[in-house]
């Protein structure tokens, strides 16, 4: 058994208290507009969210962080990426979700593991020089644990997707079994997404789709909200 396996499962566990359970990333807007209401409509949204947003933002940031650490690049490059991933999120709630979840995962990581990248990052956030983002923290921890790059990328995306599925189960609502079926069906999309991320160049960073972004902006003014984004 790989030494990292159990630690990686812990890192991807939806019980990991990063606050992911309170963010829908615009899904709640679609639920209230009655555009997402069952397993099929949710699966469709999830696929678009993965392929049109996560691939170019969080997923790409995870890969870039991993590459930078692997190549022993100057940390300034990672701090620059932290700013880019934060500023490419124009909807305020999504941007703040990244910061909050990033910092919580960072603090947790520091309580579990002891390696310098995490405390450097935390120090910069405390000094308001950096913002914090789960994709960057995840890549740091995964690499520290010796998780290979492709495994790190796919498990990072998996943890994001499985968090959203759980939120959909509560928010739409969907049956627990339907949720698990969606997760199984997402596997091939995840594999494709990882391949796509690996083929991206810097020019592709941060592409967003108009509808996804708009729904994240509109979420701020929904009358009833069970999610923070």
């Amino acid at each position, binding site marked *: 058994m790989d030494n990292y396996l159990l630690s990686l499962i812990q890192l991807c566990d939806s019980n990991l208290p990063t606050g992911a359970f309170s963010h829908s990333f615009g899904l709640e807007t679609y639920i209230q507009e009655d555009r997402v209401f069952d397993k099929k409509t949710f699966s*469709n949204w999830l696929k678009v*969210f993965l392929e049109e947003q996560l691939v*170019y933002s969080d997923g790409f940031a995870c890969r870039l962080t991993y590459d930078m650490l692997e190549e022993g690049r100057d940390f300034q490059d990672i701090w620059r990426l932290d*700013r880019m991933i934060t*500023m*490419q999120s*124009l909807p305020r*709630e999504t941007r703040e979700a990244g910061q909050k979840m990033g910092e919580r995962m960072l603090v947790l990581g520091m309580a579990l593991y002891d390696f310098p990248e995490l405390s450097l990052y935390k120090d910069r956030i405390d000094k308001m020089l950096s913002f914090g983002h789960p994709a960057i923290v995840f890549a740091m921890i995964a690499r520290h644990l010796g998780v290979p790059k492709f495994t790190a990328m796919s498990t990072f995306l998996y943890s994001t997707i499985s968090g959203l599925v759980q939120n959909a189960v509560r928010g739409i609502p969907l049956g627990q079994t339907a949720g698990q079926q969606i997760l199984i069906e997402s596997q091939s999309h995840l594999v494709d997404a990882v391949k796509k991320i690996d083929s991206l160049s810097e020019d592709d960073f941060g592409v967003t789709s108009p509808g996804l972004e708009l729904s994240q902006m509109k979420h701020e003014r929904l009358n009833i909200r069970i999610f923070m984004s």
Partner: protein
Amino acid sequence: MVNWTGILNLNVEKKEDKTITKDVYFQGAFKIMRPAYLDKTGQACFYIINPGGGYLDGDRYSMSFTLDEHAELLLTTQSATKIYKTPNQPVVQETEILLKAGSVLEYMPDPLIAYHRARYKQKNVVRMEKGSTLIYTDIMTPGWSPDGEWFSYDSVQLKNEIYMEDKLVVFDHMKLEPECQNMQGIGQMEGFTHLGSMIVVSEKAASDFLDMLYETIDMTSQTYKIGVSSLSIPGFTLRVLATSTQQIEEIFMACHRLIRANWFDKQPIFLRKY
């Protein structure tokens, strides 16, 4: 060395109460007329002209605008930007903007029309000094094709990078590739045809401005869809999905009117083009 199809460099400054040309240079497929003064505020208005009427395969355009301290500039185009089919090389347009302290730039180009099989890459980099204001808009139409089919272009990529005192504060990246995306599906254009974006960065943007915007513009209309959100520094982004250029222009106009009245004590402005 890059061979530019068109180059346009403009530097304006404030002399007494008026913004005037300090330096202007254009070459190739770009032209700019002498400034117009549309009201009594001294703000200069320039129209960018593309005498050829459209962007062709492999064209490369470069623009740079510098606003000296407290200069006020309204920048627009004379007509829509048309990008014809690009069988070999995408059309590229790169714009660098420098806004010195206290300057105000309103950059509101006409809509973008990408024709059948066109590829277009646009990048705007705006460097702002503290106390400057940027109001930027763009409108993407579903393009044009001989058989009237929408979204028949290959790709349109619009990138905006805004730096405040050398720090990245906005990174806006849209890339529409109709062939690889379900344009009418959820998350994309969602049944609409036109996409409008407005980015405003200004110290004058108080947090209650969005509330005012919500009171002014009908956000619940079913004929268009609006999202608006605050940036990490004072300012906001507004996105509109709609079915015509005119709808988007009306919303931008309402927002623009609110900004001019509340922040600059200026009357609304009408761009006289036709």
